[in-house]
């Protein structure tokens, strides 16, 4: 039994490492792109916020623990493989959904489907909430007509703060989604947070560079608002113990900012493709998991 738990933990830590490599850009991309601090210094700040987030990771961890009480190893291994493919291919698919759906599919008989439906509801609401916050926040900031120099300072410090909140959520929400089915121990979450941090430090730089370069070409204020809204929206769900995706929320935030300039500014075809991915990826994970469970 102890070997099974160790194997499950290792799979969870691997997923944490990959989340760090992949999702660190959600927190660091803007600050790195704006060259506010060098990448290594940014990761120190990132690590601090991630580890702080792990201190309340038990909330989402508890939900994940209640979701199923079956064997967590197969779903974590499947999720690990899928997440590696997602990261390699650079697809905008939520790792959260894959983990949760693989877990439910493989332990269908013991899964709490009522709780699962609540989680699915959170996935729908979280990007909408993030978008709404971004829309209101961006409109408010625009109406304040902040002088250029003030705006410059706001962005310099604000990007670090919003990135910090997103990093906090990675420790408080993303991490327990990967580890919550195995353990709900804060010390384990702290170790997982360390792996997540290492993922960002060792492999996160290139993703952050790409994201940062793209953001620099866009409005920095818009990027800041989208990131801050994501941080706030995910934090709200974290407090309710709901595992929601930062990637989904950030897309909601970007759309929210875009909608302040009119509905035509959003690229609906791209959005449709992203949303299709959000439906298909968890559906596939759920069906494959269920089929494996049946056999």
């Amino acid at each position, binding site marked *: 039994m102890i070997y099974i738990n160790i194997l499950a933990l290792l799979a969870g830590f691997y997923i944490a490492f990959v989340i760090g490599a992949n999702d660190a850009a959600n927190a660091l991309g803007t600050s790195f*792109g704006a060259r506010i601090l060098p990448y290594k210094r940014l990761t120190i700040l990132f690590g601090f916020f991630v580890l702080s987030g792990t201190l309340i990771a038990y909330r989402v961890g508890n939900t994940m623990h209640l979701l199923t009480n079956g064997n967590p190893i197969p779903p974590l291994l499947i999720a690990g493989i899928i997440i590696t493919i997602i990261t390699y291919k650079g697809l905008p698919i939520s790792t959260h959904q894959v983990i949760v759906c693989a877990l439910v599919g493989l332990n269908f008989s013991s899964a709490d489907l009522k709780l699962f439906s609540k989680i699915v509801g959170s996935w729908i609401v979280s990007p909408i909430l993030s978008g709404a916050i971004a829309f209101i926040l961006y409109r408010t900031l625009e109406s304040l007509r902040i002088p*250029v120099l003030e705006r410059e300072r706001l962005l310099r410090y604000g990007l670090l703060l919003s990135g910090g909140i997103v990093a906090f959520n990675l420790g408080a929400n993303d991490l327990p989604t990967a580890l919550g089915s195995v353990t709900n121990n804060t010390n384990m979450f702290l170790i997982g947070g360390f792996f997540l941090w290492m993922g960002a430090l060792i492999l996160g730089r290139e993703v952050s560079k790409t994201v940062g370069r793209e953001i620099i070409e866009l409005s920095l204020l818009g990027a800041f608002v989208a990131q801050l809204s994501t941080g706030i929206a995910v934090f709200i769900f974290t407090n309710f113990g709901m595992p929601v995706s930062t990637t989904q929320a950030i897309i909601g935030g970007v759309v929210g900012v875009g909608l302040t300039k009119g509905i035509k500014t959003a690229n609906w075809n791209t959005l449709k493709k992203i949303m299709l991915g959000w439906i298909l990826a968890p559906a596939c994970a759920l069906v494959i998991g269920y089929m494996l469970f049946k056999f």
Partner: protein
Amino acid sequence: MSIFVFKRKPEKEVMNLLKRHISLSIEGIKVFKEYIENKNENLLNTIIKLEKEGDKIRRKLIFNLYSAFLPSMRRELNYAIELLDEVLDSVRHGALVYELMEFEIEENIKEKAFLILDISSNMLINLKSLLEVFEEGGDFEKPMKDIKIGEEKIDDIYHEIYKYMVNIKIDSFWKGKLICDFIDRITAISDYIEDVADEFQIIYIR
């Protein structure tokens, strides 16, 4: 009032240097006008000195810029600094061309040249107001609109001068060329000011 307790020094320094450069340009135009009235070598030397001082400020600005603003603003600011330096360059070139004009310029052309320089000077004052909006907030549209109106007025005057010039008798090729160069130089000043304002507008909108 600032929403931040601590103001960052590098950005403030860049703003102050930009304002200093604009003040030098205003001073340059004033001395240039005096030089057109009274062809005194000391005045020409003052213009050359002002241009050199402007060039020093430009170099300092470019150097300071990279420790100040976020990269998203640097491209436009860098370009604006280069364009602003062209204002003093045009003043100096205009004065040097005028030095070569050993004949008396037509009174009508002279009057219009003064008018162009006065409008350009006002445009520079409005450019300074744009920088104040950057620092303290306020109405960006009004000074921006005034700069555009100033540029349009100068364009009209430029065409009026050329309409007038095509009907005057020119004794030699060099006389005609020098008058044309002189007019082109002083009208170029407002073009550069408008271009600087356009760069500021991009920063403001972003």
